[in-house]
Structures are given as C-alpha cells and as structure tokens.
C-alpha cells in the first residue's frame, strides 16, 4: 500500500508551500486523468498528492493586450468551445475537441495535459503551433517559458521540483490575416493520433507569408517544428505560389524519421505527415483569407 498524503490547498501560495516541502515526492493532481493512471500502474510513488481542485483563480480565460491567458485548470471540454469566443484559440479548440472522449474531456485539464507531456498530446501540438508560453510559479518566483522549451521529451518537462504551471498565454496574431489549423489522424475516434499536424500562416497585405509554423505531433518524443518546410513558405506569396504548400508538405514529410509504433511504421507516419500538412496548410491559408485585411 502506497503511503501517501493528500492535500487540497485553496490558494496557489498554499499549493506552492506544499510542493516546496515535499520536493520530488510531490505530485500535482489537476483533473487526475493522468495521475490516477500512473498511480495504478505504479509508475509514480509520490509521498504527497497536491490536488488543485479547490485552488481559486486557475480556471479563467481572459483576453489581454499580450494575448489570451488560459488558467491551467480550464477543462478540455471548456477549451473545446473557447474558440467561438476567442478566435485565436480556434485551432486549440479543434485539438481539445478530439481528445479521448466526453468523460475524459470533462475532467482533463489544460495544465494536466501539458505536464503529462505525452508525445501524441493533441493539446501540446496545437499549443506549439500557436507559439504558446507557460507560466511556472514556485516559492522562489515566477517565470514564463515557451512551450517548446518546456517539453523536454516523452512524458518529461523542464519544470523544476516545486514549480507549478498556473497558466498558458497564447500571443495575439501580429498580422490580421493569420490563422492556425490542427489536423490529426487516428483510425478510431477517441484514440491518440497516429500523427497530427498544426499549421500557422500569417499573410501580409500582398499575400506574403510571414513566420509560418508547422508542428508535427507523435513523430518524435515531443511535438517538433518542421523547420525546412517552414522556410519553404517564409516570404512566399501564398496567393500566387500555391505550389509552395505542396512543396512544404513534402519537406515536412522528409524532415524527420518518425518513431515507429506497432500500429504505424515510420514510413506510414511520414506519408501521413505529408497528407496532413498539405491539408492543414491549405485550410490555414483559406482561413487567413476569411479575415478582413
């Protein structure tokens, strides 16, 4: 029997004190959809479970000058609808809507999904597409880290003991004609994606693409930017040069050697990357053009 204590702090400060006291032995429980599983499977043996369910102020969504701030305890169900109110979150909502099933989306949280750091996390792939930053708080202070630097590999993050992820910031789009799209493939609904792709394009007044982002999910240990494919799109006029979308998709497919799995070989995943990248980019350009310049 696991000798473990359970605490339900009501403020962030109390939670941080508990995390500092227990150090490596503490595990944060957000929605519990990952922790309950890890506990049962014996992958973790914490000395203290710190539940966030009674901590006030971690479930807000607010639009501010620097972007949309989303509290770590916002559920995936709520996130699935947030795109209607906050247009920059549309791709994130698409991703949230595909996670597992209704039961799990009701409990699963944004922060929990990020920190679980599953290589196939729909949320992390979509968040990286949106260039999200996470806020980490500890008794020592607060820091903001780009999600790209936060995710260190499969099921691993760069969070230090005692740090708590409290919120995520999605920066506003610099150009009006900008859009992100999230595409994924899984043979059965409710499964993790075999491969997923997030695409972000931003078009200036002439149609030239600025700072594109293409993120590949479940290919390596953490979502990965397809940098060569991005470079192929940068400064191209996507209204005139539509071939560049196909070329970028081809480059994305050959950018890396995806980890093979029992149900999906590396070559199969590469094919999927090509197809999904083409689809995501085409839709992203179409969406960007819907926005009035």
């Amino acid at each position, binding site marked *: 029997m696991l000798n*473990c204590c359970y605490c339900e702090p009501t403020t962030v400060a109390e939670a941080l004190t508990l995390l500092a006291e227990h150090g490596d032995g503490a595990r944060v429980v957000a929605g519990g959809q990952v922790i309950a599983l890890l506990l049962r499977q014996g992958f973790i043996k914490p000395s203290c479970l710190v*539940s966030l369910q009674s901590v006030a102020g971690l479930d807000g969504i607010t639009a501010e000058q620097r972007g949309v701030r989303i509290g770590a305890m916002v559920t995936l169900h709520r996130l699935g609808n947030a795109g209607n109110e906050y247009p920059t979150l549309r791709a994130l909502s698409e991703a949230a809507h595909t996670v597992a099933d*209704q039961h799990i989306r*009701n*409990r699963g949280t944004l922060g929990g999904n990020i920190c679980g750091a599953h290589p196939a996390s729909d949320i992390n792939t979509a968040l990286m597409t949106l260039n999200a930053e996470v806020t980490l708080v500890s008794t020592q202070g607060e820091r903001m880290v780009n999600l790209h630097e936060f995710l260190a590999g499969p099921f691993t993050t760069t969070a230090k003991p005692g740090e708590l992820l409290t919120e995520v910031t999605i920066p506003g789009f610099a150009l009006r004609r900008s859009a992100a799209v999230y595409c994924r493939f899984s043979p059965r*609904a409710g499964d993790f994606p075999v491969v997923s792709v997030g695409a972000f394009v931003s078009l200036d007044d002439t149609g030239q693409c600025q700072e594109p982002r293409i993120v590949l999910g479940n290919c390596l240990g953490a979502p990965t930017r397809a940098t060569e494919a991005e470079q192929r799109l940068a400064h191209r006029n996507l209204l005139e040069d539509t071939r560049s979308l196909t070329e970028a998709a081809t480059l994305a497919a050959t950018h890396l050697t995806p980890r093979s799995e029992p149900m999906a070989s590396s070559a199969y995943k590469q094919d999927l990357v090509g197809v999904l990248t083409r689809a995501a980019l085409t839709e992203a350009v179409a969406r960007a053009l819907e926005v009035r310049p």
Partner: protein
Amino acid sequence: MKYSLSLTVNDEQYNLLVEASHTLMEVIRDGIGLTGTKCGCEDGRCGTCTVLLDGELVKSCLVLGLQAQGKSVLTIEGLGTPDHLHPLQIAFLEHGAVQCGFCTPGMLLTAKKLLDENPNPTEEDIRHTLVGNLCRCGVYTHATRAILSVARKS
C-alpha cells in the same frame, strides 16, 4: 494514510475511510459495495466504470476518491430498480442492446446524460457520445436504436 471521505451516492450519504490513491471506482465497488459500476480496463479507455459525478460524465477509475469529497454520484443502481426500470433500461432490453452486459451500466449512464442535455439527438450525436464506452460484443447499433427510441417516445 487514510482520510475520511463523505459523499452522496444515489441520494444516500456515505462516510468512509479511504487511501489517498484509491479511485472513485474502488470507493464505489469495494468501499460501498455497489458493484454495478464495472471495473474493466482500469486505464480510462473502456468506460465500463462510467458514473455521473455532480451530473457530469466521468470514468470513475480516473477520479481519485478524495476528489469526490462532498460531491454527488449517480451509479447504475440509482438509475432504475428491478421493479421500476428506467426507460433506457427497458429500451436496451427491448432492442437486444445487451449481450454479455458488462458495458451496459456505463453505456446507460452515458445515454442518460446525453438525453438530459439533448432530448432529440441524431444517430450521429449518439454515436459520437458513445465513443467513450467500448462494447466488445458490438451492440452499438442496437444501443443506438434503443436510445433513439427513448428520445422519440419522450
């Protein structure tokens, strides 16, 4: 380390001592003795342990018992009784939507929640909602028809 847990299950108040790592499913089955909530995969895939927690669909194997402190749970035992079956239970029997029956409690609670929120679901709505409830006998088509029939009657 054991903690005291008070929760309401099917409108009855329970006070129990539970370990921090005990799941709500273990509390319901082993602590309270209501075994209608099934223990299937225990990793959140199959949905046989589905219950309503404060009116929300959850998989009770993925909720820690202590997370249900002060909350209200509805299990299959609270949906209907052998003498007074819930209309969904009657429809499942009439449409042959039960083979081995292991997935049925979870599927019925998912169906109840669906009809509570959307009294006129399409077949597509029903299929989409049942994503989290696996049936290895394959009664999906029958279950879908059963749920549709209840929606049409009400």
